[in-house]
């Protein structure tokens, strides 16, 4: 059973569940239609100066990777695909800074106009009016999602066949759609880690066991595609169930 975030949706976010569901544009694994991979030779780390500024602002102002990722996931989906990576980061950064009460979008627009620039354009950020910094008190001051001393025995053993749960959670999750309901094998145990699904919503760390699970290409995509491929992915304990649970 995944953590029930419906309460969060009602109380903290004031959003309808379907609006907060995170099967968003960011969950790209297995999606079709994006064409070939375009490689740029001798690519610089940053193509434009603003990209490096956005990168640095995120690194310097970051206080919770999971909340930042969730903010990026909630940006305008058209912007997500068209603004490139650091444009997505800008959308996430702006969302988070507004929600935390540091800036308002009106102030950003005023700054643009003061510089003689029209503020008419597609704004990626989608801050929620219902999130405020005070509601984040259940998280510690932990920026990085770190391993925790083991306090519970892992429920799943090495070599065990498990199935990923068939549904996602209402908010942030690190269970991508393409492995849901698929059968895989536990190939590594990593001890307890902060649970992003709760940490991203200010609900505390709720540490739980993390595993690497191997899924065969045939299980994920059918046998007609490519032979001898597999995906290994790190999944939290509540993303998984025993086969006899079915």
């Amino acid at each position, binding site marked *: 059973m995944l953590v029930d975030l419906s309460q969060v949706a009602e109380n903290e976010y004031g959003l309808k569940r379907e609006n907060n569901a995170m099967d968003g544009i960011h969950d790209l694994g297995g999606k079709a239609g994006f064409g070939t991979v375009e490689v740029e030779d001798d690519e610089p780390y940053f193509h434009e100066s603003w990209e490096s500024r956005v990168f640095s602002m995120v690194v310097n*102002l970051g206080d919770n990777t999971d909340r930042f990722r969730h903010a990026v996931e909630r940006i305008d989906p058209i912007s997500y695909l068209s603004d490139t990576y650091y444009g997505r980061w800008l959308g996430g950064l702006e969302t988070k800074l507004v929600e935390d009460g540091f800036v308002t979008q009106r102030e950003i627009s005023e700054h643009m106009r003061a510089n003689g620039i029209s503020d008419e354009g597609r704004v990626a950020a989608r801050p929620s009016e219902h999130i405020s910094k005070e509601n984040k008190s259940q998280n510690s001051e932990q920026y990085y999602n770190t391993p925790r001393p083991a306090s519970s025995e892992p429920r799943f053993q090495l070599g065990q066949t498990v199935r990923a749960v068939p549904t996602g959670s209402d908010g942030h999750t690190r269970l991508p759609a393409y492995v849901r309901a698929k059968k895989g094998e536990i190939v590594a145990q990593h001890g307890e880690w902060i649970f992003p699904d709760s940490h991203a919503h200010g609900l505390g760390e709720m540490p739980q066991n993390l595993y690497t699970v191997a899924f065969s290409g045939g299980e994920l995509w059918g046998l007609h595609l490519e032979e*001898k491929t597999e995906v290994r992915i*790190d999944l939290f304990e509540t993303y998984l169930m025993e086969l006899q649970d079915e």
Partner: protein
Amino acid sequence: MSNSYVGLRAEALESLLIEKGLIKSDQIDQTISLYNERVGPMNGARVVAKAWKDPEYKKRLVEDGTGAIEEFGFVGGQIEKLVVVENSDSVHNVVVCTLCSCYPWAVLGLPPRWYKDPAYRSRVVKEPRKVLEEMGTTLPKDKTVRVWDSSAEIRYMVLPQMPPEWSDLSESDLAERVSRDSMIGVELLGLDCSA
């Protein structure tokens, strides 16, 4: 000054944050310098070259990547846990992050654009052979392709196979030849790339 709307908005946000005293301009500059100059694939290449030359080190690296890179004292790009996956005659490893763009900054620096774009993220878990072939690397049919989707905070780096013709090179010469793409797993090293 930027010409794009996104760039202009980024500049407005930066000036607002500076005005509010939330960040300083030189703090922004320093981080950019660090990542432009000191964090990059040359770090991972040193690790790979050492592993090729020193079997004991390679053993430690594959068992405990986090511990094995500590002695290099890399600065920036904190990694909580690094797992190094070794390519062999039977298994080829390739790394992706389908949900965002997680990447082992400490050893590879900041990722290239293609790693963060939808095409790579959507396709490499589903048809890795085809994606690699389009990128110039054909893998033998009898080799298992293992795709690592970095969905939590563990970061993955590929330990490529050393081309036999490089066996007489020094560790520092080897480090210069290890490419970023070989450590992501989208390239094989050496003359006979498609063997």
